[in-house]
């Protein structure tokens, strides 16, 4: 059954996933080409100095990509479900409803996690090629709030997609955006280090929001 749910989610979202993967690859490649170019044009010393002294980000181009990926994947997976209330067919399948939704979310989270892990690893390898270990780690610490923000934006977008009442969706959008903004306040590497744990806790908590919408859908709120 799990295989079948994953199959359905894959059919719905494969093109979006392909586009997201393509954009990530292109932006990562551009980021490294840009570092290379800065080394040539400004000189290695000057560029290192900018990073160390002024905290200039080398990977800023990917900042909002996880956020957009999460939103797009949520739309690709859940808008077809809510269109014509197809979710009724999904929930009618012989499986506990909460389990069904968890597997659907699981597919999205696994896809995003894989994509983000590859991004993180590629960035780590690339950074270690261009910079010393300390600067590489420093730059990497800048990325993980953005990646966590991607998962949070996915879950909050699902929360909004599954909400059956349009007016309520608009109202949910505001706290959703505020919550997501928490992950993107500061570009300074290491700025999030003291409270990354709270951000991760928020991502886990976002799962509960999805079930809030599911209960409202089941009650036939209009």
């Amino acid at each position, binding site marked *: *059954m799990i295989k*079948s749910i994953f*199959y*359905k989610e894959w059919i719905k979202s494969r093109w979006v996933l392909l586009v997201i993967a393509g954009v990530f690859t292109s932006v990562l490649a551009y980021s490294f080409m840009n570092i290379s170019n800065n080394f040539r044009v400004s000189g290695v010393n000057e560029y290192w100095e900018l990073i160390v002294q002024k905290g200039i980000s080398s990977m800023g181009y990917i900042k909002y990509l996880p956020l957009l990926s999460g939103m797009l994947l949520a739309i690709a997976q859940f808008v077809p479900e809510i269109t014509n*209330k197809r979710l009724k*067919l999904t929930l009618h399948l*012989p499986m*506990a409803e909460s389990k069904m939704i968890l597997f659907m979310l699981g597919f999205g989270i696994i896809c995003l996690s894989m994509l983000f892990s590859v991004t993180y690893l590629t960035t780590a390898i690339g950074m270690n090629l261009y910079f010393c270990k300390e600067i590489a780690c420093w730059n990497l610490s800048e990325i993980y709030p953005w990646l966590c923000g991607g998962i949070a934006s996915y879950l909050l977008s699902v929360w909004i997609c599954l909400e059956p009442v349009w007016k309520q969706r608009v109202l949910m959008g505001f706290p959703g955006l505020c919550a997501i903004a928490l992950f993107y306040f500061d570009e300074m590497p290491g700025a999030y280090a003291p409270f990354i744990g709270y951000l991760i806790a928020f991502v886990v908590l976002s799962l509960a929001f999805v079930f809030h919408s599911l209960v409202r859908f*089941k009650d036939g709120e209009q």
Partner: protein
Amino acid sequence: MEMIIRCENITHYYGNRLIYENLSFEVPQGKILGLLGKNGTGKTTIINILNGYLKPRSGSCSLFGEKMEELTPQTKARVGLLLEGHIQHSYFNVKQIEKFYSRFFPNWKKEAYYELLRKLKVSETQKISTMSCGQRSQVALGLLFAQDPDLMILDDFSMGLDPGYRRLFVEYLKEFASAENKTVFLTSHIIQDMEMLIDDCIIMDYGRLLLHKPTKEILDNFHRFRFTCETTPADTSNGTLWNTGHIGSSWETYSFLPKEEVTQLLTRNGVSISNLEQDSLSLEDAFIGLTGKY
């Protein structure tokens, strides 16, 4: 006889608009029950309540003895559901959707699905979103047959179907239900073809259940009476004559009573009527007689 569906005292409102008050009915095993009503009488609402997708203001429903909001996966596997408009997962193609559903149902009958689809001129790789409503209805029906449920719940299955597809749907359904003692609960606002399908009939009016009787009883006993009367006939609102109306001096009324009793009712108080004729009715005519034209 086991009751497959049981609804007790369902009351529901949308905002301040009453949909039903204390609606109760039961569907025994092996019956095909049709819930008929005009648009907006709450046919889809009852399907949603039955499947646990709508919480009524009060009352409860059960399927196979389980409360609607607590259906177990085992019970869900015994219920085939067709949504209004033959909605399916339209991002799949013909082959993919069969593959998707087959893993959920242990008694999946793949050949039943493909047998029905052979009648359609579609390839296995055709996407459901590119199909006509009639073709989609056959895909949905094929999936239901492959699932082989003990109870089918069909919401407005005739919607958007041309007479050919409608007849095909009805014939397959009748065969399915009668051959294996299956129970079918369906709603429709198109009454043509229903009389060859449904055993029992619930007719809904706005806010209430108008009638719950075997279809045969309605067809055998419910008649239209046409007559000429220059004044207003007596006793047209006593509950035994339905939707009495006239154009000029030509009157018509509907009733379960025999002709003699109808004549007595109409001519009470010395009112004179002439040319009283009794017509046998199709289910569609009977439906109009019971619910009115408007």
